């Protein structure tokens, strides 16, 4: 039985999207069947980052109930070597689509939750996916909470920014814990003096701050931030330390749940 992973954060710019894309790619490179879904309807970016062309159906359409999930998924497996399967569902980046998604009412959100929950059946059970990875909007957005409720594991991307730390702590207590979700922290954009500390020391520091396990520590890599068109680092730069860290995270994810 596959797993659903939601990648979330309190603030924007913590690296959710780059972590989502590269975690999905890393798992696919191991021969897994992976589906990456962009649920950040307020600021869709995966379609642009992965240079998606000729997309006929968006996740917006699936959640609106106007098409089934099969129509939305685009097979990008050829971008991944090692026989893995890499499917992506995009959020529509058109301004009109963003406006439409921000104006939904509670009943629509309730139905959208039902559509997300049913992915467990349609993608994990029927189509045999090993992983579904949700990239979400930061903070307490409807679409993000829908994703969290539907997921088995929540990966929380956080930085050492003070307001981010405070907000993340609140979400751990007042969001993930209320839904009884397994939560793992990824500390991102960590400056060198901190990332060079031992994992044990960082683990115990994280326990003090968040009372949640630390899944990984990603130092501040200028070349990752700049991207320069190499968004799937895990594929394009297999020897890069960022790729190695993602592999460590994928190892732990495989052992979770």
């Amino acid at each position, binding site marked *: 039985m596959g797993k659903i992973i939601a990648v979330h954060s309190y603030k924007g710019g913590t690296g959710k999207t780059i972590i989502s894309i590269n975690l999905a790619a890393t798992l696919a490179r191991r021969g897994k069947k992976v589906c990456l879904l962009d649920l950040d309807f307020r600021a869709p970016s995966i379609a642009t980052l992965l240079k998606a062309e000729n997309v006929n159906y968006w996740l917006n359409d699936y959640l609106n109930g106007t098409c089934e999930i099969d129509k939305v998924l685009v097979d990008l497996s050829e971008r991944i070597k090692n026989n893995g399967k890499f499917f992506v569902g995009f959020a529509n980046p058109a301004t009109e689509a963003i406006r439409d998604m921000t104006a939904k009412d*509670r009943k629509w959100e*309730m*139905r959208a939750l039902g559509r997300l929950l049913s992915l467990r059946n349609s993608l994990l059970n029927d189509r045999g996916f090993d992983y579904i990875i949700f990239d979400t909007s930061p903070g307490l957005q409807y679409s993000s909470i829908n994703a969290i409720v539907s997921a088995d594991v929540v990966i929380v991307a956080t930085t050492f920014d003070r307001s981010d730390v405070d907000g993340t702590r609140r979400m751990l207590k007042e*969001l993930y814990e209320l839904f009884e979700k397994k939560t793992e922290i990824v500390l991102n954009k960590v400056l060198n003096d901190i990332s060079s500390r031992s994992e044990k020391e960082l683990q115990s520091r994280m326990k003090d701050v968040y009372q949640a396990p630390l899944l990984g520590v990603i130092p501040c890599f200028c070349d990752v931030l700049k991207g320069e068109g190499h968004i799937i680092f895990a594929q394009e730069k297999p020897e890069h330390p960022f790729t190695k860290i993602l592999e460590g995270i994928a190892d732990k994810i495989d052992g979770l749940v």
Partner: protein
Amino acid sequence: MAKEEALGKKPLQILEKIRENLEKLNEKMEIIIELQKRERKELQPLPEAPLDVMTLLSMPDHLRKTAMTVCRLGRATADEIAQQTRRARAVESAYLNQLVIMGYLKKERKGRKAYFYVDREGQG
């Protein structure tokens, strides 16, 4: 032999009937209690309300657990919910009926079983 079996079954059937009737009584009492809390007199459930994630978040913990389990299973009996939450069936039955009265869940009887579900398509 057949006669003995029939005699043996009868008290069981009676007990089962009593249990069913007690359950129905319980449900009615729960409705009355819930309506009293809201100072409403008629024995009608409250209007339907969407069970969205913000509603789930604002619920008391004990009801959230039950409501989340119904969301996950889609459609379930009190027995099935109790297996998931590891709480007593009677407890779950009370919470489920409370959620029905609050307008978040629908209930449908099929024979002896009562199924609870979120009516996502029926609302507006």
